[in-house]
């Protein structure tokens, strides 16, 4: 849809080139500014802008699915995670003293020079690159009918190369497991229910609250839409989950957080549901005399849409848990060793 919008703008070739050139320069500039900024908050903001510009570049390259993922996960969610970490660092006053100008300049060159040299070499290789053998795009189109979905990206992610997607879903769950492991505590049923991290609530700002109240249900609807539309157009479980998690982050920022207790068993069950459903579906096919992770043509559509639904909910739970951070230990047992 977005590519369509772009092409119907009917820009002249000159205007297109000028736009692309500007985009390329802006991307490089925001990246450089973000890396070299001596103020962390500014760096994070520039990183978010960088991500959005990058999403625009993906759109120009005709990859709206990647653009959506980049905007939702790369810019949005990563930005939120950075801001949360920054807030946490400031509250705990563990921000290291800023390095001197000379140190920072030295570091800039020490990192920048190799990056520029490596980037130049890469650019040389990339510019002289001529595909000897075409990629799999033609094959995807030819076999897409057997997957039941009409979005080729979804066909690749949930059928042709579903093993990769399964492992990526597990990576997200693993991120939560590793984060929770940072705090010594037992699993859900041990001890009293864990309090959510005590963050001093920011004062409620009436305009923000009014706005977020109206935005949140709409954004939630967008999340559901992205899941549903994924089978035929850009969208899918990861993007839907990112939008739902963003709703949570918004509520959190505006002080209306209804945080699910991160250590509660239902929350943990939801977080593992995606990986468990994916693996179980794969095994069920094996038990039915087919191949691990196979999707029979007749039921492929239903299986993909339902699995994506479970994945969207489960991934959203994982992302929300990551935004909320590790639960605090049940007992105030002093410092970590």
């Amino acid at each position, binding site marked *: 849809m977005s590519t369509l919008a772009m092409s119907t703008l009917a820009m002249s070739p000159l205007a297109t080139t000028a736009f692309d050139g500007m985009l390329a320069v802006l991307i490089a500039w925001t990246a450089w500014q973000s890396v070299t900024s001596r103020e962390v908050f500014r760096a994070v903001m520039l990183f978010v802008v960088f991500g959005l510009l990058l999403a625009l570049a993906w759109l120009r390259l005709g990859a709206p699915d990647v653009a959506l993922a980049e905007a939702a996960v790369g810019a949005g969610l990563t930005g939120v995670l950075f801001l949360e970490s920054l807030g946490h660092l400031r509250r705990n006053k563990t921000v290291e003293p800023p390095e001197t100008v000379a140190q920072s300049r030295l570091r800039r060159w020490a990192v920048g020079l190799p990056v520029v040299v490596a980037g130049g*070499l*890469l650019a040389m*290789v*990339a510019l*002289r*690159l*001529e*595909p*000897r*053998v*075409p*990629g*799999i795009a033609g*094959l*995807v189109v030819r*076999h897409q009918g057997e997957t039941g979905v009409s979005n080729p990206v979804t066909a690749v992610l949930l*059928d*042709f*190369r*579903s*093993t*990769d997607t399964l*492992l*990526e879903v*597990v*990576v997200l*769950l*693993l*991120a939560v*497991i*590793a984060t*929770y*492991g*940072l705090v*010594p*505590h*037992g*699993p*859900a*049923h*041990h001890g009293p229910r864990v309090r959510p991290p005590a963050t001093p609530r920011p004062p409620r700002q009436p305009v923000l609250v009014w706005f977020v109240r109206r935005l949140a249900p709409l954004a939630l609807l967008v999340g559901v839409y992205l899941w549903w539309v994924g089978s035929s157009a850009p969208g899918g479980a990861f993007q839907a989950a990112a939008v739902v998690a963003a709703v949570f982050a918004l509520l959190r920022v505006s002080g209306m957080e209804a945080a699910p207790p991160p250590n509660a*068993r239902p929350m*943990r*069950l939801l*977080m*593992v549901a995606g*990986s*468990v459903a994916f*693996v*179980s579906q*794969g*095994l069920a096919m*094996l038990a039915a005399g*087919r*191949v*691990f*992770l*196979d*999707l029979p043509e007749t039921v492929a559509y239903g299986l993909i849409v339902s699995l994506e639904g479970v994945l969207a909910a489960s991934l959203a739970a994982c992302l929300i848990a990551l935004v909320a951070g590790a639960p605090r230990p049940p007992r105030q047992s002093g410092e970590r*060793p």
Partner: protein
Amino acid sequence: MSLAPLLIPWAAALALALPLLAGAACFVVGGRAAATLALGVAVLSSAAGIVLTAGVEADGVQRLALAGWAPPLGIVWRIDGLAALAVALTGLIFAAVLVHAEKSLDLLRGEGLSEAFRPLALVLLGGLNALYMANDVFNLYVTLELVTLAAVGMVALAGDPAAALRYLLVGVLGALAYMLGCGLLYAAFGTLDLDLLAGRVEPGGTASAALALMIVGVMAKGALFPLHGWLPPAHGSAVAPASALLSGVVAKGGFYVLLRLWLDVYPATGAAPAAAQILGVLGTLAVLWGSLQAIRQTRLKVLLAYSTVAQLGYLMVSLPLIASAAGHASGLAGALHLMASHACAKAAMFLTAGSLIATRGHDRLADLKGAAHDHPMTAFTLGLAGMTLMGLPPSGGFIAKWLLLDASLRSGQWWWAAVILGGSLLAGVYVFLAVSWSMSRPPGEPSDAQPPPLPRRLEFAALALALVAMALGFVSAEHIP
């Protein structure tokens, strides 16, 4: 009729699925049931590896088209002798480590740590099994990411957060380099499958740049010299059972991918044998630097971590041998033997370190005096596993080094033989240091006081692994590849 067509798909799928499902379960519930489940799944995973090994033995290399799609559209798992044995051995090491961890972690840091350890270990096991069977450069990337993230989580569990963060950052940089290489390969040759790539890759700038990026990436992830800096603090500070998994098994992950690329894609790029020689020289530096640093250490776990840097160096030294025609067979067999026996031996040594820490509360070498008097079995295990590190007969390490020496002499590259022998002498020094401290008597009168208690299962878990490392010396290396 052969059973392979029936059993192999199940064994392979369960080697991934069971650890993942069990890991998810252990994230939700804990306690004794979870501990039993984790141990059972590790044993089953090892059993799946044995089934795969038998299948490969009977019917040769197996290819499983996952989701029913053949490459280049889909992904296959390739199960050869190397992958099958890796699955079997990894499950075994995990089982021993889990037996140890259930007791030692709670002794170390109080209740709760073993609960957090379990899901991480199980997801790590599933990731490793998927890594061994992967035959697609992007699938390798995803599995390597899964393994790295689980490993970082293990370091962060109770180790030094700074070391964990550095490990994560180096891992991300390595992943980026590897990913760029994947992109170049796909753009030029239209596939990610290793077998197809082996047929399609043509010599040229693109292939060389791609391979160079990917090799740098896996070197960073696998702590291969000079990108090893993150390993000693990470493995030295993690809780001992985590270090056993990291140094024993995970550290080989980077080299495993390097070997896969080396055997399949590298020959087609026509890159000069100079690349092999460069990696061999880096390996030599790793052996020297790692061993000398190990000798200087005052803590057992850090000593063992530096020893891992050195032992990974031998694996790099095996590359120029594998690249030569005359030394290919014995060089490869030697590298595989070294991976297998070092995995068991190093895991056993870290477990003994964990046992000592569990009773004494520290692993300072100078204060380990009297450890052998109090816990003879643990000290015996340390020495037994150390024999493999030194390469003394009849250990698995001896066979490995013998094969590597044979390869270097056959291919006329005697200088690598000198590295292997010199490195073994240095290994002798640091193993002797570790063992001698524990053997020496504590100052003062020998007392009849009761030694600090050490649960039996901790000692047995470590001894079992040391015995496996020894037994590998009796396994013929002929049919491993």
